[in-house]
């Protein structure tokens, strides 16, 4: 695997993000696999430090690497904690021998005004890290060219393209796409790009170690997509036709995607008044016969707990994409966290069947939507997909997504024709909660012929939906709805199965789920390369957890690390409950400061553990 990682250190509103994105897209068109993410994104809107990062590789990647090869520095926030708020400046994350490319202008414009870079102040770290420093007076060049401050990033892209040998035309194509070929903005960017290239060329700058050997792809369909978009697209392909949601980071992209796209397919996007309303809209739409879903995060998920319980007892399919972030309460709203597993599995009052899945990268997000909707309708129960902030909001390059294989299985939802065939003229009566042999009752479409007593009830109810508190009735419905249903679910072959990586003979294991996948997989590879055999079990069905599979894996190990973004070690707790109990074999690797794991963060913890033992 060859590749590099770039950090754009700027200030909200100064264009850093856009330019890095365009560079990433161009690299992808050239055949690279990319991963782009916000490394420092504050939950506020202002002109403060931001960091947007790009990793590119000649093989697929699913997360960030430990350190940065290149830092584009657009102001002093790159190296200094100016506001003295305990911020760790990004320059500390450049690797030894890395590149520091900065705007050497003496004065900067809004929004970077008064954050000019004083290169002499970094002498120490430059020395210590043996950084290769390149200064370009980007701001001044802009001014001279009569351009705007935000295209400084384009100059930087030009310089990097020149030094790392990235095709200029590939980049121009993406600027053209973003701004419209021939538009004024486009032309300004073309000039800026060229000036960056020229500057580097004139200075004779070169980065031979960062040149990737790539084979440009002739539109092989590879996509750049984040987890939210992938889940939203997958939902539409799976037949979701009512989306209801309330904006919340890191789930808003699902709502926005639906706002843009669902109506074309005959669907509706309801921007609800709250998550509580949204969850109930989902139930209502499901009752009408539509496939429906919502997406949310922690605080919004709290507000959905009552509706989830209602879906449970009324046996209404309810799909929720749960995009997790740092908690509790508002917590770290724009940062990484996996502190909602407990609530997804054990939240809501009362005992009812539910299914909780997890995805690990956008391709997975997309394809799992087929199963989510099928499972939700097959078992008529709340069904959740957990994706964490990094996965939800980072852009990954993934192979072309193929909608053609999706199968829409609506379970025991009777089409008007099926309903007529089953009930009409033969004296049989439809009962919403009929006790059937297979333990699942029929659903139907209200508004279609014969469907006149489709009654769902959050009270305990008889087979035909009427309120009942009789112990026999209760027992039967509970047995059907909970015990029998969970048994059926457990046996369903469409429950996403765990995936295993690494050396199956290894005695060091990892168990995890979600966006930790990329970093752990790489960590396992690196450990292997360094002579430490390791393996990784990626859980995809969190509930019901398949205890036998997990037990087999754990039994085959001497030690099992459980990396997760939760101080409460929620995944580990689940494994204890279902598989091992408290066990010295399980070792938590907890990251709860809102920052992403990287392969090295993981491997170093394995090393520490070794040293310790």
């Amino acid at each position, binding site marked *: 695997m060859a590749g590099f990682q770039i950090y754009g250190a700027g200030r909200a509103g100064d264009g850093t993000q856009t330019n890095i994105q365009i560079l990433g897209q161009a690299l992808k068109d050239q055949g690279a696999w990319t991963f782009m993410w916000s490394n420092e994104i504050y939950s506020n809107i202002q002109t403060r430090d931001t960091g947007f990062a790009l990793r590119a590789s000649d093989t697929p990647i699913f997360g960030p690497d430990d350190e940065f090869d290149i830092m584009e520095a657009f102001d002093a926030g790159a190296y200094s904690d100016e506001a003295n708020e305990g911020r760790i400046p990004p320059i500390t994350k450049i690797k030894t021998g890395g590149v520091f490319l900065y705007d050497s202008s003496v004065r900067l414009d809004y929004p970077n005004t008064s954050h000019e870079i004083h290169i002499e102040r970094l002498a120490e770290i430059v020395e210590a890290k043996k950084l290769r420093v390149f200064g370009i007076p980007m701001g001044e060049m802009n001014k001279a060219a009569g351009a705007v401050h935000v295209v400084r990033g384009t100059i930087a892209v030009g310089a990097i393209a020149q030094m790392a040998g990235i095709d200029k035309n590939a980049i121009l194509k993406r600027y053209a796409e973003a701004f419209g070929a021939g538009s004024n903005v486009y032309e300004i960017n073309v000039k800026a790009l060229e000036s960056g290239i020229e500057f580097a060329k004139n200075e004779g700058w070169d980065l031979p170690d960062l040149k990737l050997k790539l084979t440009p792809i002739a539109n092989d369909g590879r*996509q750049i997509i984040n987890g939210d978009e992938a889940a939203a697209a997958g939902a*539409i392909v799976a037949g979701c036709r*009512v989306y209801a949601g309330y904006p919340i980071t890191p789930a808003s992209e699902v709502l926005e995607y639906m706002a843009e796209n669902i109506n074309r397919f005959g669907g509706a996007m309801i921007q609800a008044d709250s998550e509580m309303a949204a969850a*109930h809209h989902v139930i209502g739409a499901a009752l009408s*016969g539509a496939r429906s879903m919502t997406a949310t995060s922690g605080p919004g998920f709290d507000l959905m707990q009552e509706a989830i319980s209602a879906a449970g007892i*009324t046996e209404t399919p309810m799909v929720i994409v749960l995009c997790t972030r740092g908690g509790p309460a508002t917590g770290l709203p724009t940062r990484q966290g996996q502190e909602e597993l407990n609530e997804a599995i054990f939240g809501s009052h009362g005992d009812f069947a539910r299914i909780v899945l997890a995805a690990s990268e956008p391709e997975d997000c997309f394809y799992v939507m087929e199963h989510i909707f099928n499972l939700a309708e097959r078992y008529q129960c709340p069904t959740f997909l957990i994706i964490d902030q990094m996965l939800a909001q980072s852009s990954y390059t993934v192979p072309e997504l193929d909608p053609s294989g999706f199968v829409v299985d609506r379970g025991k939802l009777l089409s008007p024709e099926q309903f007529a065939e089953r009930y009409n003229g033969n004296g049989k009566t439809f009962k919403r909660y009929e006790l059937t042999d297979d333990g699942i009752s029929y659903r139907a479409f209200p508004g279609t*012929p014969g469907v*006149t007593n489709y009654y769902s009830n959050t009270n305990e109810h008889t087979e*035909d939906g*009427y309120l009942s508190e009789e112990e026999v009735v209760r027992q039967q419905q509970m047995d059907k709805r909970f015990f029998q249903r969970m048994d059926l679910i457990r046996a369903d072959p469409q429950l996403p199965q765990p995936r295993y990586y690494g050396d199956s003979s290894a005695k060091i294991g990892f168990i995890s789920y979600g966006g930790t996948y990329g970093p752990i997989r790489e960590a396992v590879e690196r450990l292997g390369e360094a002579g430490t055999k390791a393996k990784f079990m990626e859980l995809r069905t969190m509930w019901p957890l398949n205890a036998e599979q997990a037990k087999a894996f754990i039994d085959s190990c001497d030690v099992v690390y459980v990396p997760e973004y939760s101080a409460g070690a929620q995944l580990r707790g689940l494994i204890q409950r279902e598989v091992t109990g408290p066990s010295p074999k399980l070792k938590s690797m907890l990251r709860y400061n809102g920052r992403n794991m990287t392969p090295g963060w993981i491997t170093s913890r394995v090393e520490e553990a070794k040293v310790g033992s």
Partner: protein
Amino acid sequence: MAASDISITPIKRADITGESAWWCVGCGDFGVNSAVQQVIMSLVNESNVPLENMFALSGIGCSSKEPDMLRVNAYQGQHGRSLPVAIGVAIGNPSLKVLDFGGDGDTYAIGMEHFMHSIIRNVNITLIIMNNQVYGLTKGQASPTAHGGLTTISTPEGKKGRPVNPLRLAIAGGAAFVARGVSWQRNELVDIIHQAVNTNGFSLVDVFSPCVTYHREPGIRGSGPIFDWYRENYVLDIKDAWEGMRNQVFTDEERAQLPAEYDPTSPEAALNGLRLISEASKIGREVTGILLKDDSQPTMAENLGVSADRPPALADVSVENNIAGYHDLLASMR
């Protein structure tokens, strides 16, 4: 007939009656149920609305047992949350006739968020509230509509503070239809509900439906008397209210400008209605009748680009038939 046989008109009351009654003898809710059934029969038998297209919802409360009293497509949900479910149904399939039932606690206390937003969004449903000033099902605590001074188990010294006035809020929010009925006048109630259902947009029918078990006025006990208390001390027919206001509040010149009868469809109805409510409240009364009817605003379904002809619930979701669209969709993310 098996209920799932294609419904054949005319339907009889028994065809749309549930399995058992869940209310105290004498409860006002029986009157509401009876009116509702009559409206459903008339819709099906006279207006050719298929019974299949009826969808009743409710929250939790005595009043919310209404779907248990019926036999139609229905959902009995969570306390205070039937409106957002109703929105899901109405958007999922706009051809359904959605009747939502609730209590004054259900809708005006815990359900306030949804009440106001459903009105403002103008979702095409009819909301029927059985307003009894108490939380009946939880045994009689004061509800938001309890009048000042009402003694209940949660207000042992008498309720302090103002009641929620749902009519005022509905008018201010811009409901398409706003009316107050009383459970003991069946024909008027049938007429009101009928008009409500036939109004395109959000319709509120707040019905005084006395709780004979927990609504206790000093010196009054039991079913009959509490109805009398309402009649004698609490309600004011909109005709009389208008008449009274015309005569007492306005100058002669002003009066000349005012129509002799209250007209809920006039462009001034919203302001007149609010004014009537205020005037009535000055003498401790609540107006009954139809205050407002204005279906000029687009409904929520219209705003979302769906309709009875284009219901999301019946959209074609086969992958085959959508494949070109799906490929387009994905091609945009590269």
